[in-house]
C-alpha cells in the first residue's frame, strides 16, 4: 500500500512535468480566446519557442537568453496572427493553420541551415539548461514522514519553468478577474462593441492579449527544449498545443478549470507511461493508444454536450467590424 501511494506520488510528480507546457499554453489560449481570437496556433507558437530557445541557448550558452528569445519568437508568431486576423480581419482558423505549418517548416529549415543536424539543435550541456532546483531544507524535511517525501518529490526538484507555469495560472486568474486589463479583455471577447463604445481600442486590446499569449507559449517552448529536454527535435511540440487548446475548452475558458484539465491530461499521460505493459487487476493491460487519446475523446464528448456544455466567449472567431 505504502509503495502504491509512493508510486502515485511519483506519478503526480511526473504529471506536473508533463502538464507544465500544457498549462503555459492553456493560459496563452485563455488570453487569446477570451479576447475573441481563436487560437489553434498555440501549437506553432510552442514549436517556434522550443526551436528558438534551443538554438539561442546553443549559440550563446545562456538558457536565460534562450528563454527570452523564445518569448520573442512566440510574440512574433502572435503578431503574424494578429496582423492577419485583427488588422486584416482574416479568418482566424486559416491564420492559425498557416502559422502551425509555417512553424513546422521554418524551424526545420532554419535548424538545418544553422546547425546542419537534420533539423535538430546541438545538445546543451547541463549548465546551459534550466535544471531541477533542490529546495532548501529537503534533507532536513526528509525526517518528517509523508510530508518530507511529498516535499522532496512533489514540491522540490523541478526546474524553474515548472514553477513559472504554476505561477502563471493564479497570475492569469488574477489578471483576468482583478485587473483593468482583465476586465477589458473579458469584455472584448463577449461584446467588442461595448469596449469600443467605452473608448477602448479593440485592436490594441486584442493585440495585447495575443502578445501575452505568445510570450507564454514561448516559455512553454523553452521548457520543452532547454529545461525538460536538452535540445530541439523536429516537431517536438507533438500536438501539445492542441491538447492545451482542448484543456482551455475543457476548462470552459477559465484559468483554474483549465489548469485542472491540464493536470488531468498530464496525469493520463504520466499514468500511461508508468502503466505500460502492466497488467492491472480487472482492467488487464492498459491500452496505451486509448489512454493517449483520452484528452481528444473527452473533449469531443464535452463539445457534444455529454459532459456539460462549454460556453465560449460570445464574440470568438468573429473579426470586429465597426
Amino acid at each position, binding site marked *: 500500500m505504502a509503495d502504491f501511494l509512493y508510486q502515485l506520488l511519483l506519478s503526480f510528480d511526473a504529471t506536473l512535468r508533463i502538464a507544465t507546457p500544457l498549462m503555459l499554453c492553456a493560459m496563452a489560449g485563455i488570453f487569446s480566446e477570451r479576447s475573441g481570437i481563436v487560437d489553434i496556433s498555440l501549437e506553432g507558437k510552442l514549436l517556434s519557442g522550443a526551436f528558438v530557445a534551443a538554438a539561442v541557448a546553443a549559440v550563446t550558452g545562456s538558457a536565460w537568453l534562450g528563454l527570452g528569445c523564445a518569448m520573442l519568437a512566440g510574440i512574433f508568431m502572435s503578431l503574424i496572427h494578429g496582423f492577419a486576423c485583427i488588422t486584416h480581419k482574416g479568418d482566424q482558423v486559416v491564420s492559425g493553420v498557416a502559422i502551425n505549418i509555417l512553424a513546422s517548416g521554418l524551424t526545420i529549415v532554419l535548424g538545418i541551415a544553422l546547425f546542419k543536424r537534420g533539423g535538430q539543435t546541438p545538445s546543451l550541456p547541463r549548465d546551459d539548461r534550466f535544471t531541477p532546483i533542490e529546495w532548501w531544507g529537503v534533507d532536513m524535511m526528509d525526517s518528517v514522514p509523508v510530508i518530507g517525501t511529498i516535499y522532496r518529490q512533489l514540491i522540490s526538484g523541478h526546474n524553474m519553468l515548472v514553477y513559472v507555469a504554476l505561477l502563471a495560472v493564479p497570475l492569469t486568474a488574477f489578471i483576468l478577474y*482583478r*485587473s*483593468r*486589463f*482583465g*476586465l*477589458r479583455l*473579458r*469584455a472584448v471577447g*463577449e*461584446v467588442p*462593441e*461595448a*469596449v*469600443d*463604445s*467605452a*473608448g*477602448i*481600442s479593440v485592436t490594441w486590446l486584442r493585440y495585447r492579449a495575443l502578445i501575452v499569449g505568445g510570450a507564454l507559449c514561448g516559455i512553454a517552448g523553452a521548457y520543452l527544449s532547454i529545461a525538460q529536454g536538452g535540445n530541439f527535435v523536429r516537431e517536438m511540440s507533438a500536438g501539445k498545443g492542441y491538447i492545451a487548446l482542448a484543456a482551455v475548452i475543457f476548462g470552459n475558458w477559465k484559468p483554474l478549470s483549465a489548469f485542472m484539465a491540464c493536470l488531468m491530461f498530464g496525469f493520463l499521460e504520466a499514468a500511461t507511461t508508468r502503466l505500460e505493459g502492466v497488467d492491472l487487476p480487472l482492467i488487464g493491460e492498459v491500452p496505451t493508444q486509448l489512454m493517449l487519446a483520452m484528452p481528444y475523446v473527452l473533449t469531443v464528448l464535452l463539445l457534444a454536450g455529454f459532459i456539460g456544455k462549454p460556453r465560449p466567449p*460570445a464574440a470568438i472567431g468573429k473579426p470586429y467590424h*465597426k
Partner: protein
Amino acid sequence: MNTALELKNVSKSFGLVKANKNINLAVEAGSIHGIIGENGAGKSTLMNIIYGMHRADSGEIHFGGQKVDVRSSADAIEHGIGMVHQHFMLVPTFTVLENVMLGTEGGLMLRDGRGAALERLLHLSETYNLQVNPHALVSDLNVGQRQRVEIIKALKGGAKVLILDEPTGVLTPQEADQLFEILKVLRDDGVSVLLITHKLSEIMDITDTVSIMRQGEMVGHRKTSETSPQELAELMVGREVLLEVDRKPATPAEVRFSATNLGYTNAQGVLELDDINFEVRAGEILGVAGVSGNGQTQLMETLAGMRHLTSGSLNILGTEVTAADQTDPRIIRDLGVGHIPEDRHTHGLVLNFEARENMILGFHDTELAGSGTLFDYKAIQQNCEDKMAHYDVRPANPRLNAKNFSGGNQQKIVIAREFSANPGVLLVGQPTRGVDVGAIEFIHKQLLELRDAGCAILLVSVELDEIMSLSDRIMVLCGGQNVGIIDSADADRQTLGLMMAGQRQEAAA
C-alpha cells in the same frame, strides 16, 4: 444662441452606400433635439460619427464652438459626449457595476476604482431615478433595466451631450414615460439630448427641435412647436403618406387557414404568442396590426414553420398542425403556403446567389429547376427572365447577384417567386419596407389581384396605412395576444391605435 454641437458637411460612405451626404446639424445647449427618419436613413451612422465609432469621410464636428477631431469614442467621451446605442452595448456576463466601470476603471487594478465607481453609480441612479442593482448580472436584467444601465454608462463621465439612438423601441409605455422624465431633468441641468426615434408622437411630446433625414440626407430642421406630425411624416418618407388603393370589396369563400389557441414560447421560456385565434378565408386579406415587437414576427415565423408552435393548433388547407408535429418550412410550403418574409436579406434571399437562383430558392425541388435529376439552367434562366419581365425587376439580368440589386428590386424578386407559385395561402411580411412609391403601388396591385384570384392572405406591416388600405379584416396584436379582429370598414386610426395599446375590441368599440 448657444450651440453645444455642430456638424458641417459631414459625409460617410460604406462601399457604394452613401450613408450620410453633406449633413449639417446644430444642437442647442440644454435642449432636446429629435432626429427622425426611415430605416436606413443614416441616423445611426451620423450618431456614430459624432460619438467617434465611425470616422466621417469628410466634414467637421464642432463642440462648444470649437472644431474637434473625434478619432475614437475615447475622444468623444473626453469631449463630454455620452451615447446610448440602438443595440445594447452591455456585456451580459458582467455585473452592472462592471459594465459601468468598463473604460473608466480608475486604476490598473479593479479594486482601486471600484468604490468610487459604485458611489458614482448610486449617485446617478438616485439623481435621475435610474434604479438598478449594481451587483446584478446584466443577463438577469430585463430590457428596461438594461436601458437604465446604458444611460448610467452614458452619463457617468458627466456628459454634456447625450445621444439616445431609438431608446424607446424596446420599452413599455410606462418605461418610456419614465425615460422622458429623466431626459427633461437632464435638459434642465443643461445637457443637450439628441433623441432618435421613429415615433412621431414622441417627437411631438418631448423634443424642442427636430431634424429629419431621408436616404442619407438632412431634409429639414424644424422647431417642434412649429411643425405637425403630418409634415414630419411627409419629409421623412418624401411622399404622400396615405396611398389610395383601389380595392373592390372581397368575396371571401371557404376557410383556408386558421389558428386555434396558438401559443409560442421561445427558448428563453418567454411566452411570445398567447392563445391566438383567427381564420383566413379564400379571397380575403387579413391584416395584422400592432406596434413593432408585439409578436408579429413570431406569428409569421410560427405560421411559416420556421418556429415550432408550442401550444394550440393550425389548420392549413385542411391539414392539422399541432405542437406535437415537428413542422418545418418545407412541410408548410408543401401544403401550399407562400411566404414573403419580413426581412428579405436574412430570409428571403441568398445575397451571393444570382437572381435566377434566388428565383427558385425554396422551389428548387420542383420543375422550375428542370425536370431531370440535374439542374436545367436553360429552364432556370427562362423562368427568371419571365418573372423579371412580369414583375418588372430591374435590371432584368438573371445572372446578377441578388446583392447588386436595389432594395426595391430585391423585394420584387422575392415577390415574383412567391406570388407566381400560386399559393393557396400567402403570408406577407412588410411587403413594401424600403421600397419606392412606384414599386409600392405595383406590389399592392399584385397583392389584390392574388386575393381576387382566391388566395387567402395574411398581411403583417408596421405601416398602419398599408394595413388599412389593403386588408378586409384587421387583427391587432399587443403583447403577443390577439386584442381583437375588426372589419376594415370599421377601422379608423383611433380605434386601431387604442387596440394597439392593448384595449380589447369590445372596450374600443
